[in-house]
């Protein structure tokens, strides 16, 4: 017996002596290891990817006719198109495509193939079809034809403000250019085997674990400096920080809260990037069914929420209040002071909330259902919001599901109140996708994300679109926002920045001002020292 225990003890000690987490940095052939706060990807089809975790990756794989300069969403520059002309009446846009742009290899095309106008026409038509594009509703304003192999003409059938913003490489349903042949060959597999023209191409995918991309040597802006990217799906907060500390991870997605920023700042050799413009968080009320069809109840809920508390919860270094349906960093967006002057900021007023509920006959209390994503960016602030509403007698019942499922659920019109934090390239996209009746979820003509079933400003939206003078457009947009606030269709809460942390050895390759891509962007210029 004693010998048995002695042998056992020796074995255990021997094993323990091998312990010690590897502190070697992951030098796997110049591959950037990036950890995302997600369980898994949903789809890498750029026309269908709505989840944030997919948007990052799609940005690395695809291009559009135009793009925002990396790190600066205010500047639009040519991407796959090397130049373009606009006719004098503004209705015809002619794009001249770059020559020698190669798609990534795929089944049947081991060397890829050159991008031509055929692919551009195919992609832009695909973006208009609601079966193949999540944002098709906002792309119904043009007809596209190929003039020759490298020239594409777009005829605007309707006037749309800032049309160039629709042709950039930004999901969902925008100007992403995909390979016609690849889509036809891969069919249903395309969503897990993306084929684009961007600096990085798909190599391998292990569901729920990681996605490996490798450098596209024929990239038209030059061979990427990185050899590849390894995207890891790591929803566990602790493991991401430890990975950063140990050097196993180069870049990690943070939690958009000050608590996390403080923790990450303590990591040696790491830098925290808090980037704007951030995403505005709104809650949308489904006004088509009781009890939220009663405006008094919606207003009561609005008065019952204290934005300052939410901002304090998240941390003022990563969040700030917002009161207008269009965020202030876009044209026609209004600051909280401006909205307050109009009396539409719904500043925290629990007494008023309770009296409104009483008027509506709900003094005993009220129950509403909210589908919430389990992701911290939603679950945490909504948990605080739920508690705030409890104090005025509104019981918000949560239905917590994983993020990808949540996106499906809210688009199936299953939630009475929908929290959503979208970043869109321009006001028309916000209005079209969230407030135009044709975008109503499930029942709209081309459903996108009008969770409210709102039909009150269709005219104003269309008038804004067709206005030739910019001041008229902005005036219509202002009026539309005022109407939205008066009708209490949605409640703007706060704007939350993006939080990322990276090893000091990572250089993004471009200055970080304001990114539309929701992350600092990995390009051909990104390096690890």
């Amino acid at each position, binding site marked *: 017996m004693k010998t048995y225990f002695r042998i056992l003890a020796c074995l255990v000690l021997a094993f323990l002596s091998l312990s010690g987490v590897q502190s070697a940095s992951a030098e796997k052939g110049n591959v950037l290891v990036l950890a995302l706060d997600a369980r898994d990807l949903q789809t890498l089809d750029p026309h269908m990817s709505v989840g944030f975790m997919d948007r990052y990756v799609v940005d690395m794989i695809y291009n559009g006719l135009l793009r925002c300069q990396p790190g600066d969403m205010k500047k639009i520059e040519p991407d796959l198109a090397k130049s373009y002309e606009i006719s004098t009446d503004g209705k015809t846009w002619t794009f001249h495509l770059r020559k020698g742009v190669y798609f990534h290899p795929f089944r049947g095309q081991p060397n890829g193939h050159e991008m031509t106008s055929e692919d551009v026409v195919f992609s832009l038509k695909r973006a208009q079809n609601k079966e193949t594009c999540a944002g098709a509703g906002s792309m119904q304003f043009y007809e596209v034809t190929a003039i020759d192999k490298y020239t594409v003409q777009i005829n605007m059938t309707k006037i749309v403000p800032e049309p160039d913003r629709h042709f950039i490489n930004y999901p969902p349903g925008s100007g992403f250019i995909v390979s016609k042949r690849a889509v036809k060959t891969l069919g249903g597999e395309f969503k897990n085997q993306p084929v684009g023209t961007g600096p990085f191409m798909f190599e391998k995918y292990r569901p729920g674990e990681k996605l490996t991309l490798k450098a596209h040597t024929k990239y038209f802006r030059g061979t990427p400096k990185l050899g590849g990217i390894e995207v890891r799906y790591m929803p566990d907060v602790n493991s991401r920080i430890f990975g950063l500390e140990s050097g196993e991870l180069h870049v990690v997605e943070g939690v958009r809260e000050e608590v996390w920023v403080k923790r990450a700042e303590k990591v040696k050799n790491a830098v925290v990037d808090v980037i704007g413009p951030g995403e505005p968080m709104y809650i949308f009320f489904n006004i088509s069914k009781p009890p939220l069809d009663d405006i008094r109840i919606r207003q009561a809920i609005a008065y019952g929420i204290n934005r300052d508390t939410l901002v304090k919860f998240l941390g003022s270094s990563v969040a700030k209040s917002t009161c207008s349906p269009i965020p202030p960093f876009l044209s026609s967006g209004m600051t909280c002071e401006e909205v307050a002057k109009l009396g539409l900021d719904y500043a925290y007023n629990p007494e008023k909330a309770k009296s409104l509920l009483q008027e509506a006959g709900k003094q005993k209390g009220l129950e509403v259902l909210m589908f919430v994503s389990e992701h911290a960016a939603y679950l945490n602030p909504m948990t605080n919001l739920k*508690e705030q509403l409890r104090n005025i007698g509104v019981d918000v019942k*949560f239905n917590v599901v994983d993020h990808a499922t949540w996106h499906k659920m809210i688009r199936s019109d299953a939630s009475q109140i929908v929290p959503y934090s979208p970043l869109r390239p321009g006001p028309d996209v916000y209005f079209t996708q969230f407030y135009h009746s044709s975008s109503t979820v499930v029942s709209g003509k081309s459903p996108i994300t009008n969770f409210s079933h709102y039909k009150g400003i269709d005219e104003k939206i269309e008038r804004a679109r067709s206005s030739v003078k910019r001041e008229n457009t902005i005036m219509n947009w202002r009026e539309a926002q005022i109407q939205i606030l008066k009708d209490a269709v949605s409640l703007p809460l706060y704007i939350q920045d993006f939080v990322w942390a990276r090893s000091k050895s990572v250089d993004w390759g471009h200055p970080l001002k304001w990114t539309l891509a929701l992350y600092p962007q990995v390009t051909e210029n990104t390096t690890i020292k």
Partner: protein
Amino acid sequence: MPGSIHPYRILDYFLSKQNRRLSIFLRNGPAILGLVMAIIVTFVAIMAPLLAPYDPLSQNIDNMIASPDENHLLGTDRFGRDLLSRLIWGSRVSLCVGVGAILIGMTLGTIIGILAGVSSRRVGDRIMRVVDVLLSFPDEILGIMFMVILGPGLINITVGIGLLMVSRFARLVYGSTLSIVQRQYIEACKALGGSRIRIMIRHVLPNLYSEIFVIGSLWTATAIRVEANLSFLGFGVAPPTPTWGNMIRDGVIHLVEAPWLSLSPGIAIAFTVLAFNLFADGLRDIADPRTLGSI
């Protein structure tokens, strides 16, 4: 030691069977400890509104993830809620679910078990086969399946875990019923034309009481542990209502900066489950030797 006469044993000789059992139990240190621990937890659960210093749900954003201090003995969580208060209120869920589930399982399981036992061999076999299939699943898996169907909520988790317990009790009671039924006086009853229900109630059931009670208290510990497992996974009572399991789940993210958020609820669970285990062990020592063997 064979041959020596212990003073206590002389005393026992003079006591009635019940009192003898009691005296053995009272000498069993660990069992008394278990009983006291269980009483403490029950007391805390009943007196929760008076004992808890704060409302377990009210959030205080100005004081998030605070270290333990004189205002908050166990600190606060991510939403500024007092941990101690949540811990105290969490005991209600654990006990309600634990005891409630056992009562459900005990009642339904005993009925099924006795019915199967007094019926003909074939019928009994058939019923038991279904029970055995249910028993072949690991607890957590079956629990997840039930909770997915039933949905969240206190009643639902109690019923869900109760259903888990039904098959255990049914198996146990069936076995005991079979051995009781084989006794000759039951045969005599049957021969004399006694109805089956009468046999069940008057002859079988009384013999089962002590066994069911002992095993029931043992399985209460299991039920409490299963509830903790399921609420850690996100089933059962929904947040923000505190349960020890979901408190641990919420605290894991902050394990580095505030380990007490996860560590304290776990100690509470272990304390409670240990209490019932010790108590039940002591009961088993004084019960009939036939009940030994199931763990």
